[in-house]
């Protein structure tokens, strides 16, 4: 069993409640920080931990904290991004549902570090029951004196609230989240200015993922240097991985960064191997936005090294032969999966979730979906494959926010690694007319039909 930071206490009966959480040593970091450390010392510890933001982009959390404008004297806010909506990702939900006080403790310590007196947890509307769990836990924390005026007699005041969203993936983008928190449509803002300078109500704001903030108590209790000893040199600490798809034991696992992908998928401690012993066909390692990996690049990188569960190894080879660890949404596909259908599914998702503000994303995501749907339903043309490639290329990098890139990358990777499947769909429409076309006849068995034509 690897090092457990977030899940260390998760199996303790009643850890959901304040009493048990406190008895198990909860809220110690608040005591330590407020009584013995300056806010900047807390920031330094987080910096030393080298923790990369766990929401998907992997931006160093301590650095983000150090950017916040404390000089202007404007009120500052810490906002927790609990709008977990990236397909394949369901880790934050698990943390908040089963150990809600960990996040609240992290929010208090974090807010102290940023010298914020008002903080919010923005949770997606579909997690309605967790919203209620968090509201309840916050009430408990107020009652026990961890929130409110003059916390622990130190003179530090903090109010913490949960704000509920209402169904929009785009609100996971930090500026869209801020807009939504202001009661508006979730249209991402144009950057600069960055939230650290002008965020919520035009005041300095830091937006961090649930998992990132939940690591703060441990870092404060044990020091950033200790945290940095866990994991690999460049990927410090542990990471929650949401494993799903065709594996025996889907679920949320806390791993020490740096274990091999092979072990993660096949060991009984984690995914427990492939479902029904079907062979692995593809892997989306970090949520739907990241490039999909074909079987031969899952366990080994292009130059033959073991592929590890770490930021650097997962992206080894760039987009040509690598991917990204992203949000840790780990989706495993076996040979019954149709890559074209799955790519269409993702494209439909991004089409549905585009805010519609900027033209490449608004028009491009819909176009991608329509072309992919045509190919998947047997109405594709040979030139559609190049058309798809061209559309995604024209969206990527040209949009206001990263949703455009997120919509483009899965299409690009699918064509890059599985072009023959697209050709098969175009050339043999009668063979793919049922939606489960690869269940009875996996692509491996019919591959010769397209490769034969190519040679």
């Amino acid at each position, binding site marked *: 069993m690897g090092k457990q930071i977030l899940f260390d206490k998760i199996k303790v009966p009643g850890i959901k409640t304040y009493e048990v959480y406190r008895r198990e040593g909860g809220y110690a970091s608040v005591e330590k920080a407020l009584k013995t450390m300056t806010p900047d010392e807390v920031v330094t510890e987080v910096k030393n931990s080298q923790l990369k933001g766990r929401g998907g982009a992997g931006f160093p959390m301590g650095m983000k904290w150090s950017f916040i404008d404390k000089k202007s004297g404007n009120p500052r806010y810490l906002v927790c991004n609990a709008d977990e*909506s990236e397909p394949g*990702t369901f880790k934050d939900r698990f943390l908040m549902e089963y150990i809600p006080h960990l996040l609240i403790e992290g929010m208090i310590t974090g807010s102290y570090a940023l010298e914020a007196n008002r903080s919010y947890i923005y949770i997606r509307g579909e997690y309605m029951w967790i919203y209620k769990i968090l509201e309840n836990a916050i009430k408990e924390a107020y009652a026990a004196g961890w929130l409110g005026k003059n916390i622990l007699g130190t003179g530090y005041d903090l109010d913490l609230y949960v704000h509920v969203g209402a169904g929009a993936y785009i609100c996971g983008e930090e500026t869209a989240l801020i807009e939504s928190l202001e*009661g508006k449509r979730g249209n991402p803002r144009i950057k600069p200015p960055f939230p650290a300078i002008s965020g919520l109500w035009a005041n300095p704001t830091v937006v961090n993922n649930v998992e990132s903030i939940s690591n703060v108590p441990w870092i404060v209790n044990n020091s950033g240097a200790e945290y940095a000893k866990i994991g690999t040199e460049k990927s410090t600490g542990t990471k929650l991985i949401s494993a799903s798809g065709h594996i025996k034991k*889907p679920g949320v696992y806390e791993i020490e960064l740096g274990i091999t992908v092979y072990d993660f998928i096949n060991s009984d401690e984690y995914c427990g191997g492939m479902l029904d012993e079907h062979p692995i066909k593809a892997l989306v390692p970090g949520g739907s936005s990241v490039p999909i990996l074909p079987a031969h690049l899952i366990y080994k990188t292009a130059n033959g090294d073991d592929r590890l569960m770490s930021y650097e190894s997962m992206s080894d080879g760039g987009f040509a032969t690598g991917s990204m660890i992203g949000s840790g949404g780990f989706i495993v596909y076996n040979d*019954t999966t149709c890559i074209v259908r*799955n790519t269409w599914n993702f494209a439909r998702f991004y089409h*549905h979730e585009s805010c519609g503000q900027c033209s490449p994303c608004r028009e491009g995501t819909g176009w991608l979906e329509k072309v992919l749907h045509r190919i998947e339903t047997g109405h594709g043309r040979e030139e559609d494959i190049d058309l798809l490639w061209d559309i995604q290329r024209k969206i990527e990098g040209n949009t206001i926010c990263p949703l455009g890139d997120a919509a483009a990358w899965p299409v690009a990777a699918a064509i890059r690694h599985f072009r023959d499947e697209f050709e098969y769909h175009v050339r043999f429409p009668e063979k793919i007319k049922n939606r489960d076309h690869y269940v009875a006849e996996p692509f491996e068995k019919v591959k010769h039909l397209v490769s034969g034509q190519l040679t």
Partner: protein
Amino acid sequence: MERKQYKQEINITPQLMERINELLSHYPADKKKSALLPVLHDVQDAHDNWLSIELMDKVAEILEIKPIEVYEVVSFYTMYNQRPIGKYMFEFCQTSCCATRGVEDLMDYTCNKLGVKLGETTTDGLFEIRGVECLGACGYAPMMQLGDTYQEHLTKEKIDQIIEDCKDGKINLHYQTNG
């Protein structure tokens, strides 16, 4: 785009108003608009899970904002309904993991069983089926949202049972914390 208008009885009860005031207290006094999303959830909950133009106007009045600001927000987010809907809304996740674990077959099965297409309400007003995008339950696929909570690891048998439970009034759409 012209929108069809539906009639709705509006009733902002004292309890609802109390809850709205509590939500408003979460934001600075001059930032009432910020409470819009949470307030809409509670108002919708108290009005058969949908929002008419009149009801949205009422919310605008309470939050001291323009009606159009409410319409814009309501139409942006998928969880607000702008027409009367079935009491038990089965919202099936259709995204990748659920799709690879057979949600499409289950949706067909449920539609056939209830005799409706996606987005239609059964004649008794009890059920409605929708396909939605990723709900963050990929490891527990296939799944659907029903009220405040999720129904996960679905099978045909489970769906049969859920439908029976709904008909018998055994399903509580609202999640209660014990605190």
